[in-house]
């Protein structure tokens, strides 16, 4: 019976939510129950930079309750994800350890890009509906407390994703001192955020037509829409605007009364509604989709995919690679060389994968590293390694965790920097021992693959790689002179041999 009961837990800044799913090959994801308990972890973190013991106790109590519910549904697997409230807490490791010991639940801290990616996956979990939507220019707008993520799609692929510091709470905090001086709270918000949106449009919407918008977010997004329609609904711009007038043009008190919520909550909702409205106008979209999804949907979808219980019609890996490609283009990388590098790296990776326990996810990291391997040249031709590292570390790549980003940045650094193979003393601080080993392995592959196109001329017409008797046999078919490549191959093969305990052997066949 390929049906699993899975619990997805989302530890947010204001709520701790859990949704239990049935994940199966036949029916995909089926939500069995969802619960939510208010807990203002964010208040602690944002003010004190740490999570208090009192809040920890409350969180443990909630998670213990959730474990009981899990038992009620025979849950066999779970994933608990925490976001900014944990990310920004200095005592996060201690808190995670306490939770693990008290409840047996291991909490994963999501990077912003991972979090957004899971949110995006949750929309994609709608299957055909989502695919149909993103065939045309589409923006996914995901507004949280601190920031808003805008992801643009065109022809079935992610073309850009940007994080803007326009979160509903952040806007509220920025306006808290002056909101008493105006009767039109919405107008004040509009003035505050207009300049940011105009910049965004100029930079990313040039020559791009956005026809659809998908509105997602946290608990508050669902709250502002709850009273007016069933979730998972599409509507026209005119319908949206009609609703907007009724909700966002009132004072926080009026909106609170209308919706049966406190005015404190409505002061968070109004910025969110205004932001949604402005984006709709700015992008000039015609159709709005409110899929009514939560992060927990994304966590479950991701789980189903990993367990091969769900097969997505959308290629999420391609989104990550596309984002990496766009980034390399921005830093003027050589497209042909990058593609040749990806092909060679992947062939070598596939040959050695099983021998040294590399997993498919590592292949994705390697490919991203290929695209970004020389982005630092844009800054400095002499210190490319460090520049590339810095560019990668300061850029969000959707779908990657902070840890994965560090691995990629170090792979790229090890690729260029002259270094004496494995040296524990040189392990970068941002990598664990395991990740250091992984980064060295991927860098060894990248270096070897790089040497096969060191002239950037894509001389190889064919490439075959196999492992035999502790040797890595690389067979190249080419019509051109391959001397330069041979020379660099020998230099890089030493590094590869030390890391993999496989001696790279190059055989070049000259094609007629």
């Amino acid at each position, binding site marked *: 019976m390929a*049906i699993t009961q899975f619990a997805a837990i989302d530890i947010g800044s204001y709520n701790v939510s859990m949704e239990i799913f*049935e994940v199966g090959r036949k029916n995909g994801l089926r939500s069995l129950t969802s*619960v939510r308990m208010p807990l203002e972890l964010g208040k602690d973190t944002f003010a004190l930079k740490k999570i208090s013991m009192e809040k920890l106790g409350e969180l443990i109590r909630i998670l213990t309750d959730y474990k009981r*519910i899990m*038992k*009620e*549904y025979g849950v066999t697997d779970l994933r608990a994800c925490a976001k900014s409230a944990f990310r920004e807490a200095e005592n996060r490791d201690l808190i995670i350890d306490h939770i693990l010991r008290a409840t047996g639940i291991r909490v994963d801290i999501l990077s912003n890009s991972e979090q957004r990616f899971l949110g995006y996956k949750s929309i994609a979990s709608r299957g055909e509906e989502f695919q149909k939507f993103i065939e045309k220019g589409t923006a996914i707008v995901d507004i949280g407390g601190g920031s808003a993520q805008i992801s643009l799609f065109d022809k079935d692929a992610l073309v850009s994703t940007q994080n803007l510091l326009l979160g509903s709470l952040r806007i509220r905090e920025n306006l808290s001192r002056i909101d008493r001086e105006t009767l039109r709270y919405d107008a004040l918000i509009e003035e505050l955020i207009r300049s940011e949106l105009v910049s965004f449009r100029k930079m990313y919407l040039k020559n791009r037509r956005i026809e659809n918008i998908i509105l997602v977010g946290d608990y508050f997004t669902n709250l502002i829409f*709850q009273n007016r329609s069933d979730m998972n609904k599409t509507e026209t711009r005119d319908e949206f605007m009609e609703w907007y007038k009724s909700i966002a043009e009132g004072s926080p008190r009026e909106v609170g009364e209308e919706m049966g919520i406190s005015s404190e909550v409505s002061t968070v909702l109004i910025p969110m509604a205004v932001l949604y409205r402005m984006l709709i106008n700015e992008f000039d979209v015609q159709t709005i989709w409110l899929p*009514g999804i939560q992060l927990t949907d994304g966590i479950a979808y991701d789980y189903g995919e990993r367990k091969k219980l769900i097969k997505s019609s959308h290629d999420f890996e391609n989104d990550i690679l596309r984002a990496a490609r766009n980034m390399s283009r921005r830093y003027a990388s050589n497209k042909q060389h990058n593609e040749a590098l990806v092909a060679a790296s992947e062939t070598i990776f596939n040959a050695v994968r099983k021998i040294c326990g590399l997993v498919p996810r590592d292949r994705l990291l390697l490919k991203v590293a290929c695209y970004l391997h020389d982005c630092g040249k844009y800054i400095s031709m002499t210190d490319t390694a460090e520049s590339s590292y810095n560019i990668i570390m300061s850029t969000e790549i959707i779908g990657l965790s902070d840890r994965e980003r560090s691995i990629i940045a170090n792979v790229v650094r090890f690729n260029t920097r002259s270094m004496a193979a494995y040296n524990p003393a040189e392990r970068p601080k941002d990598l664990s021992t395991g990740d250091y080993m992984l980064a060295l392995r991927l860098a060894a592959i990248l270096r070897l693959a790089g040497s096969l196109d060191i002239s950037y001329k894509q001389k190889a017409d064919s490439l075959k790689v196999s492992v035999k008797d502790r040797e890595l046999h690389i067979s190249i078919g080419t019509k051109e002179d391959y001397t330069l490549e041979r020379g660099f191959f020998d230099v890089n093969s030493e590094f590869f041999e030390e890391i993999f305990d496989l001696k790279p052997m190059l055989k070049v066949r000259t094609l007629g």
Partner: protein
Amino acid sequence: MAPSDSKKMSSTSKAAEANAAAKASDGAGVPDFTAPSNFYNREISWLGFNSRCLSEARDSKIVPLFERLKFLSITESNLDEFCMVRIASLKDQVHAGYKGVDIAGMNSQEQLDALSVKVHEFVHDQYSTFNRSIVPALLKAGLKIAAFGELEEAQKNFLHKYYEEVIYPVLTPMALDSSRPFPLVRNKSLNIGALISAKENSGKLSRKGKKKKPEMEFATVQVPSVLPRVIELPALSDGTRTVILLEEVIRGYIGELFQRYDVVCTCAYRVMRNADLTIDEEEAEDLLLEIQRQIKKRQWGEVIKLEVEEGVDKKLLKVLRREFKIADADLYYIPGPLDLTFCMKLYGLDGFDEYKEKPYTPAPVQDFEGAASVFDAIRQKDILVHHPYMSFDPVVSFVSQAAVDPDVLAIKQTLYRVSGNSPIIKALATAADNGKQVTVLVELKARFDEEHNIAWAKTLEKAGCHVIYGLLGLKVHSKITMVVRREEDGIRRYVHLGTGNYNDSTAKIYTDLGLFTCSESIGQDATAVFNMLSGYSEPDRWYKLLVAPIWLKDGFKKMIRREAENAKAGKPAFIRAKMNSLCDPEIISELYKASYAGVQIDLLVRGICCLKAGQPGISENIRVRSIVGNFLEHARIFWFSNDGDDEVYMGSADWMPRNLDRRVEIVFPVDSEELKEEVKHILTTEFEDNVKAHLLLPDGSYEKIDKRGKKLVNSQEQFCKEAWAKVPKKKGTKKERRFTPSEGI
């Protein structure tokens, strides 16, 4: 209230009231549906219901004699509860200086004044029924309720022995003098008060040589509630069976309790105290402990009613009135035995079967017959159960089978009132024992069941169930059970939703409906209900259920308004609903508006009804009936015509503010067309009842339906027959005889 009496009661000019109501308009011709003149006071309306019960006790033509005893007993226990809660609450309001008015525009004092008059009238009617109608009929049937002085010798001997051995050891006589304060007299307890004077003082002369007036002391003895109130004696020599009441025996032997005294006079008396629990839930650290404390206090609340025997000695009465601080309005002279609930004990006497209804055995539910398990049956289709016509066993089996089913992961249930030895509680404990996740919401605040509920809630907790003790500020009145089961194709949730409590005892006498389903959307909603009750978030949406306190009233209002819109648009529009009580002003106003728009509204309201039916310009299209029969009408059904696409709902909620605003209630749709037809048939039959139904007249009185020239329809009897008609008759197993020739050698 009997029709003639209720006409008397409503002697205030009803016609004038109706006209005033019609005139109270917004100036544009639309009447003001919310004007107080458009509503009846709920307490007076409740007394009307008790009068309808009493009319059953009076009905010697249709109701068998011993069933009449039962009705009389019910009117007494009803009235006791009414006084302890409703009158007590009004008194509290007066003490607190509350000046607000009720739905009918009466302030608390005005209500108390009106009620005092009506309760006195009611008590008079009760005893006139007992003395003039029932006692002679009992005698005719061969049962005598004897006084102490009229016993035959053999009976006296029997009784003396009984007194010595059984009664005397548990009596605690108490005398009141300067050294001993007035004893605490328990709520509702029956007592015998006496004035006694010391024998040594009798005959003493005063200084002036005159015979001294004996100094009298007050003494009292509680009639022990641990002993049977009705004692059957050996039959009279003519064969008449004889009973005597316990207080009569004690009074007969009272001299033996005060041997150094002369007993000057005696009188049975009973006090009713304020028994409404006042719990500050916000302040209560532990609700369970707080309720336990309050239950103890209930015994000693303010005395709000004193009953004494008619002809009580003036001096004795003076003592009682002084001690209990009783005003004239709250003093009742009772022309017969106090506390008529003993009539239920008479009903329980063996024999007299010809004077009792034949006991009804609930029919088995056919949809469950032959199924491997209740779950198999429910998987086939939604199943409706109509109690007590159909057996309550499937409801018990639902929990007990789940308790031992290896595929069941969890059981969740709300419990309001359960029976003393509840099989459901046992099954829940077994389930927890078997490692199931069991969550039970126990409503500790279920009035007068608090003590009982605490006891079994603790039992469940000990068994390992997760027990939730209600919600802050809300009573959980919904009746819902959910079983989570892991099946081959995934998790399936089985849900039972009911209109009545999970009480196997009352399920034999209350008419209720229940629905078993494994519908995904109801399963989702049921999960959301339990999540909400467990203190987790409220759901963002409900798929099927209407849930109070937040969503239910609006849901009903929308459906009533939809009918009004349909009527305005010239479409056929009607509402047919059944409930225990109707007193929510918002809902009533909506009904008036709908009636005004042309919606035909037929209501079956067993008890309180604050709506005025048939008022010109207000409610001409509204008809209200009340059925008081052998079974207590308890189901809530709501049927909206919805422009031909009928919507039928059932649930735990009445149209009362307490149900819609202060309780967790569930109203659920009947979606299956087959079941919808069944429920519609039930309502239709009840509206056709002309034996047990009473019609609310425009003047506020009720009268029995005119059945002249009509086929008699007793809906309860009909449902009994229909339930058994569904049960296939067992074919006689004819033994087949066959002669087998022996094999040839």
